[in-house]
């Protein structure tokens, strides 16, 4: 476990550069293309003071108003940590590639896909899931209930969350704005008619 240590990897990084140019060239295609770098420059860079984290790391995440401590790895996604570490199972894993919206959470006020957000990057930010929403008659979930805006319920947490985020930004959306605002979520049962009506009704209810 190496938590918040200064990069000790000068030597190994140099070996990496020598030994794995093929792997680097074929497998990794980032704009910081790894090929052709002068070794001296690489070494100079690698010995700079950089705070890198790896292995298992203790973090505190602000979820639904509570500071929750847990252990993660740098590669852990926010979705995985919420579901498997913090037992916040509202957000669902569906596509796991940022294209269906079932894992939507509100991060510092913005609806985001938690499956393509790293938990480690979410430290110090406010994370909200549907578990924290108003369960009364003025809340978004109630409007979904009234309009039967669900069938199997698997997309539902994501839709409710995306709708909540939409209304926080735009409390008075038009039909077109609702359609566009909920365009990041998919429902395979095809309950879009109820979902859209729920969003419009929730906007009214919140204003009252």
């Amino acid at each position, binding site marked *: 476990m*190496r938590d918040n240590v200064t990069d000790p990897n000068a030597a190994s*990084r140099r070996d*990496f*550069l020598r030994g*794995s140019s*093929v792997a*680097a*060239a*074929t*497998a*990794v*295609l*980032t*704009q*910081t*293309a*790894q*090929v*052709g*770098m002068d070794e001296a*420059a*690489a070494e100079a*860079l*690698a010995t*700079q*003071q*950089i*705070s*890198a*984290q*790896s292995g298992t790391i203790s973090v505190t995440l602000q979820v639904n108003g509570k500071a929750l401590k847990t252990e993660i*790895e*740098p*590669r852990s*996604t926010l979705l995985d940590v919420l579901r498997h570490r913090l037992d916040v199972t509202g957000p669902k894993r569906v596509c*796991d*590639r*940022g*294209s269906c*919206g079932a894992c*939507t959470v509100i991060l510092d006020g*913005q*609806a*985001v*896909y938690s499956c*393509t*957000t*790293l938990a*480690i*990057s979410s430290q110090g930010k406010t994370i909200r899931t549907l578990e924290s929403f108003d369960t009364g008659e003025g809340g978004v979930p109630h409007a979904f209930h009234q309009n039967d805006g669900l069938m199997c319920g698997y997309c539902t947490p994501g839709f409710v969350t*995306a709708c909540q985020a*939409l209304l926080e930004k735009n409390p008075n959306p038009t039909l077109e704005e609702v359609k*566009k*605002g*909920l*365009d*990041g*979520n998919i429902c395979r049962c095809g309950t879009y008619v109820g979902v859209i009506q729920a969003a419009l009704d929730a906007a009214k209810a919140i204003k009252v």
Partner: protein
Amino acid sequence: MKAFEYVGATSVDQAVKALTPGSAPLAGGTDLINRMKDYVTSPERVVYLNDVKELAGISGDAASGVTILAGTRLAEILASEVVKSAYPALWQTTSEVATPQIRNMASLGGNLFQHPRCWYYRSGFGLVPKTTDGKHMLREGDNRYAAIFMTDGDALYVHPSSLAVPLIALGAKATLVGPEGERTVEVEELYKVPTSNSESPFATKPGEILKSVTIPASKGKNASYEARHKQAHDWPLVMASVNLTFSGETVSDARVVVYGVAPVPWRSKAAEEAIKDKVITVESARSAGEAAAAGAKPLSMNGFKVSMLKTVITRALCTSAGNKYWEA
């Protein structure tokens, strides 16, 4: 996803220092994290840039030009009044990128440096996917969504960044920062065409990241038009951005750039020539579209893109002239 070490950069200087060989910069994560999950990209180190305050924001105005810092989220670009009024080509394209959630997460830099969507590439066969006996998987296989220009070469995928298209049309310049300091290039110079799987599609130097994009003053008119498969969130099939300056009623200078037809944002010099010294009408716009199609060499399954190419150029030109005849 393979394990990696993580650097949460808080300054550009720190980010550049952290981006040692084998590292990948991470912004919104909407592309890189998916590639890591699919083992297409497995960096040793990930350097997170979205918390770098000095990389986010939009400054300037229509008269002097606008600078958008690389970490600016797409949603912030959409919220910018100056982008909306002076650079509708960029604004329109941004509004059509992916979904609200992705626009909240994704940065300008991440959009410009995303990797191709080609499904052979995403399945681990590289950008020039060939079978062990040397057959080109895209040329011989399912090439519906592949390129129709530059198809004599081996890079047959299409360039994935839709924002690069209006930015190139607008003549934007990119400022890169790396171990050797800063340099500024045309946005189109960020890209190159690989001839094998060992080459990068990016013309950046090792360790460089994008710092900002500067769009010159808005002088004429600009617009974008895209055609897509689904009405809802999807990538465009073909999209065009145009930027025109006028001398009186006639076009004195034109830039026409197309998405979805080549492994780089495709600058159609032929269309630019065709519309020059013309007044924008449906007929002159269509002639420019026809001219653009002249050199196209589609593959076995994507001839339809030639027709789409003509149409999106025609309509982008007409949009710039305020004539959205197809919506009538």
